[in-house]
């Protein structure tokens, strides 16, 4: 009997691991392939499968060329600036909009919330032309702010913060009110610190999206020295005048690495924040 139970357990675990490993391979293989191609100084096996999954004559040649053949560091700087701007903007807007929707009683609050949520149903491309015209009138074409501001008011962020604020016990707010806190002090000194995991999750989510944002920055940013990585790498290394596919792969790997590193350090917030928000 004991043997039977044991072998069943082993079989069960084997099944779990086999499934998870298969999924990991499925999601990681494009990156693996890109890294393998980028690390091959000799590109002759690039398209011969499965040989290409292992570098041919390994070396950092293409990675070095990314720095010399295109302004990689400029793009990296632009991506960082725009991602940080977006995170700060989204967090501020979501907190300021989520609090009244969650905690203050006023006429029409439910309707306003529904309207905000409805914007999630629209594809973002619908807003591009009106947004472009608006940015033009605000003289924000080819500005970092113009490339990011349209993402500040994110329905998802407002929804996430509203849910987070609703979970804060009423007693805590009452206690702060008796202690003499104003609404703004309650928000910034009690609600925001207490909801830190949700805010962290929102921040990470936003950062990844902003880092990978391609279409809007490619429309609104006209000069090369303002471009973020996603746009810059695509513009410089693909198309009819592309020099080398190997270099594209090296650039892609380097574009992804900062996000991966960031995510590795912050994933516990991401997971714990989503626990309460999405479940």
């Amino acid at each position: 009997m004991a043997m039977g139970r044991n072998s069943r357990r082993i079989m069960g675990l084997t099944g779990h691991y086999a499934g998870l490993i298969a999924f990991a391979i499925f999601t990681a293989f494009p990156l693996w392939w890109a890294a393998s191609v980028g690390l091959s100084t000799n590109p002759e096996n690039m398209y011969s499968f499965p040989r290409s999954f292992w570098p041919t004559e390994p070396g950092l040649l293409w990675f070095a060329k990314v720095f010399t053949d295109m302004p990689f560091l400029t793009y990296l700087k632009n991506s960082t600036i725009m991602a940080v701007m977006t995170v700060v903007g989204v967090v501020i807007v979501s907190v300021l909009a989520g609090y009244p929707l969650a905690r203050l009683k006023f006429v029409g609050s439910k309707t306003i919330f529904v309207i905000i949520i409805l914007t999630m149903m629209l594809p973002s491309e619908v807003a591009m032309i009106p947004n472009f015209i608006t940015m033009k009138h605000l003289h924000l074409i080819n500005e970092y702010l113009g490339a990011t501001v349209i993402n500040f008011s994110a329905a998802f962020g407002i929804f996430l913060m509203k849910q987070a604020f609703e979970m804060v016990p009423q007693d805590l707010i009452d206690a702060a009110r008796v202690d003499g806190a104003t609404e703004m002090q309650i928000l910034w000194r009690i609600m925001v610190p207490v909801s830190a995991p949700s805010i962290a999750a929102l921040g990470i989510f936003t950062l990844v999206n902003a880092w990978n944002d391609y279409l809007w920055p490619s429309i609104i940013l006209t000069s090369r020295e303002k471009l973020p990585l996603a746009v810059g790498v695509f513009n410089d290394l693909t198309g009819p005048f592309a020099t080398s596919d190997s270099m594209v792969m090296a650039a892609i790997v380097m574009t992804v690495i900062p996000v991966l590193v960031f995510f590795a350090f912050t994933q516990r917030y991401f997971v714990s924040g989503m626990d309460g928000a999405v479940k």
Partner: protein
Amino acid sequence: MASVTLKGIKKSYTKDVTVIKGVDLQIKDGEFVVFVGPSGCGKSTLLRMIAGLEDITEGELMIGDALANDVHASKRGIAMVFQSYALYPHMSVYDNMAFSLKLAGADKAEIDKRVQRAAEILQITHLLERKPKALSGGQRQRVAIGRAIVREPQVFLFDEPLSNLDASLRLNMRVELSKLHADLKTTMIYVTHDQVEAMTLADRIVVFNAGVVQQVGSPLEMYENPANLFVAGFLGSPKMNLLEAQLVGVENGLAVVRLPKGITVRAAVDASRATAGSKVTLGVRPEHIQLATEGDVGIPARVDLVEHLGDIVLAYVEIPGVNDILAVKLPGHYTNLKRGDAVRLVFPETSALVFDEAGLAFKRTV
């Protein structure tokens, strides 16, 4: 320190839903008043109205000599302790206690002095650097009280502060709250649904039911002379035995009532305002019922269940023809009483109470 005066206080959420139906109450400076009543009777709502966390629909609230209806919660000179403690989880104990003073712009030395003093009173000085999550329930409760003390309020408000603690800790904290009141001599208003807490802590008890004050008085006065059936049934454990009866006669200072099957009982109350034959309720506390000894006449009854609690014996007995089971509290030496025993009960006339048809008590004559 300050008195608290409530004049015709009402609270409605909508036109039809009124939860507080006109409360008049005078709480003296330094008094410990306990609001007690079943869940949903409006006692917590009234406390929150005094605190400034709920609007007052109608009536006047005076704290000290000042009208406080429209004064912000933080300006009323009150401090509140919540059932959930409501400690700020991201702040240390010290910062939790100092928060209100920081908001008020007190200087650092003053804040430190007050926090240290409150911590000493509550013996939590060694916990000041910890976060609330590293504290036990009892310690959190102390911090919550400390946060109130630091503000040096004129009135302390407690909203069921002990209900999240286990039984032994609750007993300890109850004693400490009594001591705290004796030391600080500040007006305290305390809400609970636990009548033992009410009886032990209060200078005066206010019994609520369905948004109406049923009776106000000292614990013993309320226990011995409940104004109506609700108060009689609410205070005391086990509850007062309440039996439906008929008033058969009023003699000088005595009411004679008849239970079903022609059993008559005398009670030393003045029932002259009722007419003979009217429906009444006879009330006898479990500890007042005696077992008849040889020679005494008594009401025959049968023991249904016996609980030996060591110091006392609780017997549940049934009188033939009477629907309700009676609780009888007997001294601990009645150890051989058992289920099925036939006993005879005596209701001493000086401790029996009678309530009229509307549920109001007749006045005792002794």
